[in-house]
């Protein structure tokens, strides 16, 4: 256990050295936030109450999306680049020799990264958003606690999905296509492009039942107090269920990959 904590901590520290990249990311997320905020204002002023949100809530959704974009890494940018590269080059063979669990090792790496990006890239965009636009941020510390719980669970779900996608590198030589596809599905299904509640009825229900909703839609709704009391625990259970299912699927796929692995290169 201590080794995984050490890995997470060191990955966190590794990311703290990329200061210019972090500042650049914050800048870009903030600009996108401003652009999207105006499109949402136009939409919500024409159709008040759309998807169950008023204008401040819709704007909160925009800025949370920008803040969670990097930590959730649906577009890539997480551990999977390094992991996928190790599979492609054959370095993964060395990892199999290590006396650690591969899935938990990379989970620790990704947790360190996500923790850093949550602090480094998450806070400022939403703060800037709150300065320019009216946001519906809660005052109760308990709501914030519930929010960060769903974010943590969402990060595990996101990790479990990206782990499975990266494992496909054992069968496909060039992963870029699959990762692009996974990024598209992830950004769309998580609600990064538009809140899932705005989609047409049946589609909205389907998307909310899928694991990607754990990445943005659920945390945003929890922050805005849409789930209270018992319902809040049902939401946690829903996220935990997907985390467990997807992590186990990843383990099963690892076993299949290990049994067939042919290391490339000399």
């Amino acid at each position, binding site marked *: 256990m201590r080794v995984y904590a050490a890995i997470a901590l060191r990955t966190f520290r590794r990311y703290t050295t*990329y*200061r*210019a*990249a972090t*500042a*650049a*990311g914050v*800048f*870009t997320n903030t*600009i*996108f936030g*401003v*652009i*999207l905020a*105006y*499109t949402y*204002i*136009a*939409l919500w002023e*024409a*159709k008040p109450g*759309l998807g169950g949100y008023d204008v401040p809530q819709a704007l909160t959704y925009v800025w949370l999306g920008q803040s969670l974009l990097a930590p959730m890494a649906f577009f890539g940018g997480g551990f999977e680049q390094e992991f996928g590269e190790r599979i492609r080059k054959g370095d993964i063979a060395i990892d199999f020799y290590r006396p650690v669990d591969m899935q938990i090792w990379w989970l620790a790496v990704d947790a360190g990264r996500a923790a850093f990006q949550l602090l480094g890239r998450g806070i400022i965009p939403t703060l800037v958003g709150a300065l320019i636009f009216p946001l519906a941020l809660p005052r109760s510390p308990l709501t914030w606690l519930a929010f960060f719980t769903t974010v943590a669970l969402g990060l595990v779900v996101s990790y479990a999905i990206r782990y499975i996608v990266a494992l496909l590198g054992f069968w*496909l*030589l*060039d*992963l*870029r*296509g*699959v990762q*692009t*596809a996974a990024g*598209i599905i992830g*950004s*769309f299904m998580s609600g990064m*492009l*538009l809140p899932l509640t*705005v*989609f*047409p009825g049946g589609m909205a229900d389907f998307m909310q039942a899928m694991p990607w909703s754990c990445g943005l839609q659920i945390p945003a709704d929890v922050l805005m107090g849409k789930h209270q009391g018992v319902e809040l625990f049902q939401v946690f259970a829903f996220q935990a269920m997907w985390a467990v299912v997807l992590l186990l699927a990843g383990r099963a796929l690892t076993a299949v990959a290990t049994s067939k692995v042919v290391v490339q290169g000399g």
Partner: protein
Amino acid sequence: MADALKAFWWIAAMWIRSAFAYRTSFLMLAVGQFVVTSLDFVVIFIMFSHVKSLGGFVLPEVAFLYSTSGVAIGLADLVLGNAERVGQRIRSGEFDVILIRPVPAFVQTAADNFGIHRLGRITQATAVFVWSLVALDIDWTWDRILLVPLMLICGAVIFGAIFVLGGAFQFAAGDAAEVMNAFTYGGNVLTQYPPTIYARKLVLAATFAIPLGFVNWLPAMHVLGRPDALGLPEAFQFASPVAAVVISSLAALAWRAGVRSYRSTGS
């Protein structure tokens, strides 16, 4: 100039051959690009399933803005997009290799990793473009007919210049490459929507600080027969070539300055 274009084509052709060697991956990348940009339009489509107009513009009009911006950035990304990805070579010192080859460094950088799969995005934007032209009821006078291809070309040049500025910036910026996404992809999203939905200051900045407004907003207002949101003189609606020349010159100067400042990595 002819030599440079020939060299560009040689390098690009090599990358196209290499892309076709991994056919599944190529197809997924191309289809992926098509789908990514389609999803942007799906978002707009879903928005319009709830409302009749956004900022006073109906769906075919927004589709026209969306697609002209999409075609412009798609063409720019295909030809010059890789100039923006020069950062990796600068950091690793590989740019040395580019400087000693007998082909202009700019041509090599632009053609490096030439991504034929980017046709996926252009195809999608073109499809929406054609649909918007069919759905719109435009009074096709000769100036409008000429303005449409002109705005696509100038838009591509403006986005291309922004990509090159991004590349030049990386000689100084190191890790901060992502800043450019705010202007390229951010500029793309910005110009997909009508200027009337944004704050006046933002539209002013996106017209005069960075000439994104000349990509489609200003000329499109003439094509669509609408007043311009900033109330500028009508000449501005035809001024995209001027904006394109100005920003391209700036980009060329910045690129030269960038290459001159390159000091390798010392390894």
